[in-house]
């Protein structure tokens, strides 16, 4: 199982702050994960429509969409940050 966590409007659109998922073997990269999630329902498709703007962190570190997710304990999906 992999823990997915969502923030800001990604969280609001998906409708939950986190979930544990079993990822298929062909979900290798972050981009694969985003594609796979989009097929899980309307709410996911809505949240991840513009997948290119979604920021991703694996185990609390920013990663690019081509990063491999093998070994990820926690994967976070969120919009561009607006702190500071």
């Amino acid at each position: 199982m992999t823990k997915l966590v969502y923030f800001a409007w990604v969280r609001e659109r998906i409708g939950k702050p986190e979930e544990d998922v079993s990822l298929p073997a062909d979900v290798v990269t972050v981009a694969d994960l985003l594609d796979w999630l989009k097929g899980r329902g309307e709410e996911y498709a809505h949240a991840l429509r513009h997948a290119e703007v979604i920021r991703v962190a694996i185990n609390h570190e920013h990663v690019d969409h081509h990063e491999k997710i093998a070994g990820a304990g926690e994967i976070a999906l969120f919009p561009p940050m607006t702190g500071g």
Partner: protein
Amino acid sequence: MAGPVGAVVPVVRIQAADFDVAAEVERLRNAGDVGAVVTFSGICRDEEGTLAALELEHYPGMAEAEILRIAREAAERWPLAGLTAIHRYGKIKPGENIVLVAAASKHRRAAFEAADFLMDYLKSRAPFWKKEHRADGAEGGWVDAKETDEDAAARWRK
């Protein structure tokens, strides 16, 4: 305190409570042979009266880790005697503090640049998101990220 051999260890705090600029300056002033302390306070604007409050969401764990990574990079890049970053979360009203960065050094250039750098990177890399609560009661939205913040961070790439 900054030894001559290594970079200073930054202080990073993620908290709901307000911070005390004077107390943070006071702590840095006594960090060693300090000639300059630069502070940046980020404050919730009132957007000409349209804003009731900002709700700051953050990613616990990663927020502190990411700011610490940025602060360590600053401490390696400039000769600092002390470096502090405090970021608040939760509901923040116009006029209230959101973020504090404070840098102490022997000379002013390092203190200015380190504080400036830390703010630029914090804006584009620290996992915080602002949602607006509007003064007229209408549904407020998530604040959009600014391209200028990405550009600001890009200034520092060597």
